[in-house]
């Protein structure tokens, strides 16, 4: 009986894993392509409009997946930068899903053999990719990390959102919206997750340092559950009748807060600032309940990544190993600006 039970359990788990992976695998089948050495090729862009004599710089852009809109945005930005620089060729590679860590490791190993001049990498796993990156460095290939780094600083540079800074930007916007004084509450998305901690620290430090007349009345953690966020926000509104603003530290928190503020009919008196971007956040901005949100910049990761690799190849080491790609504050005021629209729809 026990045996049967354990076999059944194993079957269920495997089945659920297969189900979980199946769909996505199919979707990015194009990414697996010729499976020789696990390499997958998305597309290659060459541009030789620059000095014809100079050698083309071949850069591999290795992302966690190939097909997702996010990574396509990174790729587009990298290709644009390549075009701008001239003699740079970008090849976009990546495993079929983020979970295929082994595939990504193989891809990096193949890149080393294929004589790429530089690698831009978003690591699927912070530990598993340390060795491949080290090997690439030993082979003399510069490696620039984007979005997700690795546990040992063997790379040349790491481009990602500095969440402390981003949290501070949200605080500045909030302060501006509520006129520099009053009570503000925070709905954070998780307790104890580094990203969440960084954002909250950035926000609270900025308020404490520069806005003496703003009081942060409390922090609640909604586990990225908008319904929980809505309940917590409603309770904040009941507990603090003079509350002037609520910050939701990720997209789910923000849409929950927006929902609560709408239900309580307080969208004019309570300012909602969010973080990240999604269809629901966009509707919130459009309807004016969400007054602003911090949008991360995959485009900067793509273009700056290329720039740094090219600089290193030309003998110019990056000034800082860790580079903050920053956030753009999209607000109800600026959201119709074509530039901001491009960021919102990136």
């Amino acid at each position: 009986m026990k045996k049967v039970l354990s076999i059944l359990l194993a079957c269920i788990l495997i089945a659920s894993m297969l189900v979980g992976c199946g769909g996505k695998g199919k979707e990015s089948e194009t990414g697996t392509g010729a499976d020789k050495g696990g390499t997958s090729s998305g597309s290659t862009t060459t541009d030789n409009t620059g000095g014809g004599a100079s050698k083309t710089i071949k850069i591999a852009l290795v992302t966690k997946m190939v097909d997702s809109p996010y990574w396509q945005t990174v790729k587009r930005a990298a290709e644009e930068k390549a075009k701008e620089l001239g003699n740079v060729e970008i090849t976009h590679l990546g495993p079929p899903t983020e979970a295929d860590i082994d595939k990504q490791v193989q891809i990096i190993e193949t890149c080393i053999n294929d004589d790429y001049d530089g690698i831009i990498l978003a690591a699927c796993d912070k530990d598993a990719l340390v060795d491949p990156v080290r090997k690439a460095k030993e082979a003399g290939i510069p490696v620039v990390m984007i979005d997700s780094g690795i546990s040992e600083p063997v790379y040349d540079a790491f481009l990602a959102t500095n969440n402390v800074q981003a949290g501070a930007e949200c605080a500045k916007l909030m302060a501006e919206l509520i006129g520099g004084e009053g009570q503000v509450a925070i709905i954070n998305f998780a307790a104890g997750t580094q990203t969440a901690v960084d954002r909250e620290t950035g926000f609270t430090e900025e308020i404490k340092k520069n806005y003496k007349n703003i009081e942060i009345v409390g922090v609640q953690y909604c586990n990225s559950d908008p319904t929980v966020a809505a309940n917590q926000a409603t309770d904040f509104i009941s507990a603090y009748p003079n509350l002037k603003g609520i910050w939701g530290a990720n997209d789910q928190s923000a849409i929950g807060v927006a929902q609560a503020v709408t239900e309580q009919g307080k969208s004019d008196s309570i300012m909602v600032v969010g973080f990240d971007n999604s269809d629901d956040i966009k509707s919130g901005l459009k309807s004016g309940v969400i007054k602003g949100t911090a949008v991360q910049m995959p485009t900067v990761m793509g273009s700056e990544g290329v720039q740094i690799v090219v600089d290193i190849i030309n003998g110019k080491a990056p000034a800082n190993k860790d580079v903050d790609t920053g956030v753009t504050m999209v607000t109800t005021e600026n959201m119709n600006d074509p530039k901001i629209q491009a960021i919102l729809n990136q």
Partner: protein
Amino acid sequence: MSGELVTSTKKAKVNIMKGKDEALQKFLAFGVLIMLCILFGVLTGGSFLKIDNLLTIALQVTPYAILGFGLTFVLITGGTDLSAGSVIGFGGIVCAKAVTMGVSIPVAIIIGILAGIIAGLINGLFVTKLEVTPFIATLGTQFAFRGLTQLVGQGKPVSIQALGDEKIISVFRFIGGGTVFGRIPFPTIIMIITAIVLGIVLSKTGFGRRLYAVGSNEETARLSGINVIKTKLTAYIICGATASMAGILLAARLASAQSNAGQGYELEGIAAAVIGGTSVMGGEGGILGTVIGAFVMGVLRNGLNLLKVDAFVQMVIIGTIIVIGVWYDTARRKKQSV
């Protein structure tokens, strides 16, 4: 013949005793609820007892309570359903997906509830036909249904808001958070209707009695001719249906179905049922108790929020209350068996 009579009178006696004890637990839970309300009312200087705040609590507890009803059925059979939280996400996202694909709202809601019923049926089949321990079976399906939810949403929320159709959005917003008769939240009305229907099913029908019999002693129930498999299967199906109902209400309130909706809610639902006197060992419980239990949890959360208690301290307090509830249940059973 006479033997049958004897067992049935014995059973009746036990039932009466149980009924008394259950009523005591329900009464106790209700007493705790009233005490909490008075306590918070005093401590917050009356703002807790404002009608608006009480209605807010009613809206906040609604999804947990509805989920708790289904879990009450499963718990009475002596089982459990750890996948209920995932079914919340699944029902909600299937319904929202149907709407974004152009299906009319009532049909989409039915599809969503059907998704929950199928999920419940799968759980029930694992538990009854394949005889997998409910804890393990539903732990497995918890992953599987969450995976299916993520698949439907492609890892992202399915946004009804993004459709941009004001009519559909306003209908959903009404279902999930609108008010009727002045200020009463519509989902709470649904919760009350569901409670009445399921309460009657549980206490007044043959199915309800069979459910208690199966939960008290499966073997005896089998020997007295009860179709144990069918009874249990129905309990899991009801649980799936209530979970997907809760999921649709959650998705409707936000006009957006989150692929992670309902994560961990099964434990809230179980806690609500247990605080309200449903035994995790099976054979005992009721819908009214679960309503009270859900309100105890909701009142605690809301009251502690109004009192500006730190988020982490709140977790400790709520966790402790749940343990006390279960401890009381166990202690009572021990006394009973002596």
